[in-house]
């Protein structure tokens, strides 16, 4: 299966890549757009201009050097902790679900939920900032009461795809979940 183009909740282009490894093992990868050079330039320039204005009045060169430091550190922190390049969801029937997100710096975080803990995968609605959005989430079983839900794990938290993308992932997941 190949790449499909979708948009996220604010209208930016994202792409969904579905890979079918076997009949009960599928991987979904949502990739967001890369860090745009223009945006980086705008932020850097604005910080530097601000620093130069301060320097103009105070004539303290430490301001300029700290501004350079701040932009560099800020950029690194951003690509390391904030900017997510792609998020993937690996569903393996009878085994579990692996959720991983890789940051622009190459850092990856992965978590695994075993099938015995999973109750269901659903599309839910939530109020996010000043919007109401749909999101895909994994419902975890309560250890004491098998019918109750102990907690909800939201998926694709940083890319926030829209409904049509979520439905596609949801359907494939349900196909696998219903088999086991």
């Amino acid at each position: 299966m190949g790449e499909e183009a979708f948009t996220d909740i604010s209208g930016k282009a994202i792409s969904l890549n579905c890979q079918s490894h076997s009949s009960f093992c599928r991987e979904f990868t949502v990739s967001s757009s890369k860090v745009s050079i223009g945006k980086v330039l705008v932020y850097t320039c604005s910080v530097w201009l601000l620093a130069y204005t301060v320097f103009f009045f105070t004539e303290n060169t430490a301001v300029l050097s700290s501004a350079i430091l701040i932009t560099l550190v800020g950029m690194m922190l951003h690509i390391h902790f904030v900017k997510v390049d792609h998020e993937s969801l690996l569903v393996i029937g009878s085994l579990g679900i692996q959720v991983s997100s890789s940051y622009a710096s190459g850092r990856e975080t992965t978590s695994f939920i075993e099938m015995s803990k999973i109750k269901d995968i659903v599309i839910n609605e939530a109020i996010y900032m000043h919007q109401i959005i749909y999101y895909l989430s994994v419902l975890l079983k309560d250890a004491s009461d098998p019918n109750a839900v102990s907690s909800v794990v939201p998926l694709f938290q940083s890319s926030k795809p829209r409904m049509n993308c979520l439905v596609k992932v949801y359907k494939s997941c349900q196909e696998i979940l219903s088999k086991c």
Partner: protein
Amino acid sequence: MGHRRRAAAVNNPSSQRVSGAPAEAVRVPSRKHNICMVSDFFYPNMGGVESHIYQLSQCLIEKGHKVVIATHAYGRRKGIRYLTNGLKVYYLPLQVMYNQSTATTCFHSLPLLRCVFVRERITVVHAHSSFSAMAHDALFHAKTIGLNTIFTDHSLFGFADVSSVLTNKLLTVSLCDTNHIVCVSYTSKENTVLRAALNPEIVSVIPNAVDPTDFTPDPSQRQDNRITIVVISRLVYRKGIDLLGGIIPELCLKHPDLHFLIGGEGPKRIVLEEVREKYQLHDRVRLLGALEHKDVCGVLVQGHIFLNTSLTEAFCMAIVEGASCGLQVVSTRVGGIPEVLPEDLITLCEPTVRSLCAGLETIIARHRSGSVPSPASIHACVQNLYTWRNVAERTEKVYDRVAGEEVLPLHRRLQRLRSHCGPVAGSIFAFVAVLNYLFLLLLQWLVPDRFMDKAVDATGPLGLWKQEQSSKHRALSKSATKKAAEPKISR
């Protein structure tokens, strides 16, 4: 993009797919609306407005309309919930200021309310209660967005004091370009028309209703060796609890077999406790405290006479509930109460201790002579007077009428505000309306409508909740809805 196509189909019954639509939609040719009820007051808060919104919504869903409710978050209850029959409730995170009413700035609720209106494809916004700031905000935003608006007024106001002068002015501003107003009694209509300076022809009278199955008589619960007077109301000044404090000793001294059963809580409880203390009536006057709605009937059926001492009331649900349980009703003649029950079911008195005592004494005398009608016959008279189905039918007519009316464009709205609300208030609110419009444009630029996912309908012509009823997945309603939704969306 299956959504977009369905969005167009909602307002056009002929192109409906029959597959998901309930049977009523096919049978009744009338137009279906997407209604958003907005009020600060909704469950888990309890009261007349709350149950009105809930019951009306349920009956409208039954008639095939799509209904969603928007209210503010109550404690940890925020986000989106589904109630019986797929009634979707948005608990929006807005700051509560006073008495469960939200703070208003005229602007801050626009992003969320717009989101609700757009994603639910709302055609009619129905706001409830003049005490609710959120309802007025929603009316204001809906007019800015260009939706038809309806307002239901549940309460009466005077004209005498400064606070009512101010609230009446705000009501005038809020209602001057609202398409239609609903009042619960003729007295309430007169009051609202005067307060908001309205054309009486855009004000409809649709009474409240009572679910007669909840309130059925059970004479076995009565104790025949005594006469019990039941009072169920909040114990506040407006409900005339001071009068009750005068009636209790008067009657208890005359009739040794008379008992009072008083349900409700409030600041005037102390009055009743003092009376009970002074006249040593602990065994004859029982104060039950706050009652849950489900317990009310159990208390009512224990009594012979229902007493209402309200000093003002738009439409008194309590007396209908009392009569529905087969009690003789004695009430003050205030507000809309004389319109509610026919003369043979109610004894109306002036709001004085002497008049109420006289009224109660005639009923007590009739009881002793055995000439009162049986509870079952009273219940039979009352049970069909006020039903939620009837209310929903009449409200539906209002929706049909409003759907054909135009929403004033901005320039005409400004003209109307300035011509109708006086030069000062009119100009101020015209300015606010312009700001609101600019804010809306900003929001539409930031998050265009086309980037908002249209919500999956749980109710209405394309509602999916009916399928859920038969499906196996009932454990979690939310997930079940989505499962039911799945085949349609991916088509």
